[in-house]
């Protein structure tokens, strides 16, 4: 039968439809082919001489300093994996299955990306790494918003994400994913570590004003420190104000603190935001004030040497928590600091430390699994006990993919002995004290096979 009116036969219409359908679905078929690779997982490097890792860090935005240091650490880790340099923590890490010949004998290569400290840019960059550059694993941070966004992508794509600097409880809490792993500590652990020290230093019954970065990490940090200090020392929240990420000028948020009746300001800020808000808080004379018969105090729950460097004089005497500090005397910390210092001329930050550890931990897990198959690598990482990486005996808990290790409480150094000696360690809080049930921040890891 022919449709003479339009000049198109039924047969030619059907042929055209099939051809168009095939053309439209072709890219999907090709991608699936690439995914299958004959071994059932994406970007299988079995038939290649090299294996590619993706380092997706903030090179611009509020966390750019941390991002730059993360990238340095990744490059150093790749160097050590390939058997170059002094090996760093590969000399101290236990158990140790790496041989200095790459991963499973394949030379390690890497690509980099800029997350811009924005979730959408980070996802686009990670997607490019997975689809175009063929990475078998990607890592990086900072910002929990970014980590959570790319972790979800990791699950969708079946590519492991070894998170860099991300501190929100949600990353391994309600937003945990089977393909996401966090070595860095979190806001809950900061609260648990800080509360006893804050009580000992500043006493009970304080009136607290919170300035909080308005995204997942800020909310998480605010809640954790509020709960921990309320339970430990009966500290009460006078007000909690959310500030936009990257606000720059915090004066309009700091001035209300002066007359709020608060005697303590908690700055739930990180990176450049923390440098700006702390500097401005000091400029407004908060630390010179007396309120409720007590000296006014400022607390920064999460800080790092990089921020201390940026804040200069303002950080002196301020208490906070940190994941790791280069001045630690254990063999792992010293090996890493020496190696990093010789390479770059200054010591590594906590962001660099966690990224370096994550790269080695992934590589070691692949060696233990004997394959790059992400399902097997995930199983090798889950409930893996390790030490010699700077934080004492540590556990990669299988239930939520969070590492449990010692946490440091530090203070801005009043009398630094060198240009890098900016934080003094007040207390090394034992892993048991900061461990919590995986059900406290319930979430679903999702399936192994995607």
């Amino acid at each position, binding site marked *: 039968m022919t449709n003479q009116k339009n000049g198109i036969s039924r047969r030619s219409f059907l042929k055209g439809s099939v051809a168009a359908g095939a053309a439209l679905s072709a890219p999907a078929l090709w991608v699936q082919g690439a995914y299958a690779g004959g071994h059932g997982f994406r970007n299988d490097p079995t038939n290649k001489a090299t294996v590619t890792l993706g380092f997706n860090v903030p090179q611009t935005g509020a966390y750019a300093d941390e991002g730059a240091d993360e990238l340095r650490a990744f490059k150093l880790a790749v160097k050590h994996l390939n058997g170059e340099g002094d090996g760093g923590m590969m000399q101290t890490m236990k158990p140790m299955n790496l041989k200095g010949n790459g991963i499973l004998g394949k030379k390690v290569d890497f690509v980099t990306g800029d997350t811009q400290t924005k979730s959408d840019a980070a996802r686009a960059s990670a997607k490019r790494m997975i689809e175009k550059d063929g990475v078998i694993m990607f890592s990086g941070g900072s910002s929990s918003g970014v980590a959570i966004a790319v972790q979800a992508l990791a699950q969708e794509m079946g590519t492991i994400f070894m998170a860099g600097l991300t501190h929100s409880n949600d990353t391994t809490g309600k937003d945990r994913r089977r393909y996401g792993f966090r070595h860095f500590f979190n806001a809950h652990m900061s609260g648990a570590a800080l509360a006893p020290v804050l009580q000992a230093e500043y006493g009970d019954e304080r009136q607290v004003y919170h300035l909080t970065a308005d995204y997942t990490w800020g909310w998480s940090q605010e809640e954790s420190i509020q709960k921990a200090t309320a339970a430990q020392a009966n500290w009460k929240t006078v007000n909690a104000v959310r500030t936009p990420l990257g606000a720059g000028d915090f004066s309009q948020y700091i001035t209300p603190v002066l007359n709020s009746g608060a005697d303590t300001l908690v700055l739930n800020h990180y990176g450049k935001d923390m440098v700006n808000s702390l500097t401005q808080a000091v400029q407004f004379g908060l630390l010179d004030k007396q309120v409720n018969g007590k000296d006014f105090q400022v607390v920064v729950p999460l800080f790092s040497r990089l921020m201390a460097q940026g804040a200069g004089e303002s950080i002196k005497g301020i208490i906070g928590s940190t994941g790791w500090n280069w001045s630690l005397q254990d063999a792992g910390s010293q090996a890493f600091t020496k190696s990093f210092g010789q390479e770059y001329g200054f010591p590594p930050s906590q962001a660099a430390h966690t990224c370096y550890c994550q790269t080695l931990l992934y590589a070691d897990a692949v060696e233990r699994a004997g394959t790059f198959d992400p399902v097997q690598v995930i199983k090798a990482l889950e409930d893996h006990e390790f030490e010699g990486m700077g934080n004492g005996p540590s556990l990669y808990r299988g239930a939520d993919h969070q590492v449990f290790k010692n946490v440091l409480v530090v203070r801005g150094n009043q009398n630094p002995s060198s240009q*890098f000696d900016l934080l003094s360690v007040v207390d090394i809080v034992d892993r048991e004290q900061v461990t919590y049930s995986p059900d406290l921040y319930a979430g679903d890891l999702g399936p192994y096979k995607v």
Partner: protein
Amino acid sequence: MDAIFLQILNGLDKGGAYALIALGLTLIFGTLGVVNFAHGALFMLGAFCAVTVNKVITLSAKVRDESVTFFEAYKDVPYLEMWLGDTGSLIIDWSIPISLVVAIPVMLGVGLAMERGLIRHFYKRPHADQILVTFGLAIVLQEIVKAFYGANPIPQTAPDFFSGTVNLGALIGMDLTYPTWRLVYFIFSMGIIAAVFSFLQFTTFGMVVRAGMADRETVQLLGINITKRFSIVFGLAAVVSGLAGLMYTPILPPDYHMGMDFLVLSFVVVVVGGMGSLPGAVAAGFLLGILQSLASMTEVKSIFPGIDQIIIYLIAMIVLLVRPRGLMGRKGVMED
């Protein structure tokens, strides 16, 4: 009461910056009839004059840091400190006031080059063309700065002498301390505004410019080269905006994008003040700065959550509904 007073002071700081940018925008619009979207970039360029001067006077030698024993560490020791000792440190400490002297001729040159090299070709073109070309120019300037200095903010410090706080409470009987540099910025912005108004009001040059703003054709018929004077006014507006940016660097670490952030707000300021009205631009700058600060107060935010983020635009909408020409706008401006 103290809190309100402090927020007003904060508002005056921000308002000072808004007013200075808006003043330059209005000067250019009033004289040349150009809507200059590159004006925020001039604010940013001024800030980067401070960064550049600071980088030049802190050029450093790498010296081995003996206090670090873990690895070979080096520290930067500025040549000025090596050569001049304490005098060198003092010069570095005062880099922002020093950069003021450098920025005036630089910004004047940038303004003149911008006007003579590009913008004058667009005087007779529609406003839409002017907006497009100046917006494009702003992006080019931003990208040039980004290529040289990177995308991240570069903190600048005020001289030690101005780095503490001033106890204003002693003057007015309140418990009130305020950062010294922020007060300096407010006084500086008032000084610049007074200088610009005096220049226009009390000099022959200013008189001709005002006459040209009112009736360009008649002034030209009198044989006065008004184009040349208007070019100088463009340069002057660039200097005003540049200095506003330069002095703001200890308050907000400059990055390549800072101009765009301020430009949008400053256009709102110009519209609220009234297109073409110099006093309107200044008054609206301070008014919106203060309202923005007051809207950040806890008491206000507990009633209207998030009001601090939208207050400026809300006020602009109300003003445009009630007084479509702005607070002090003249009839006939941008109405043809």
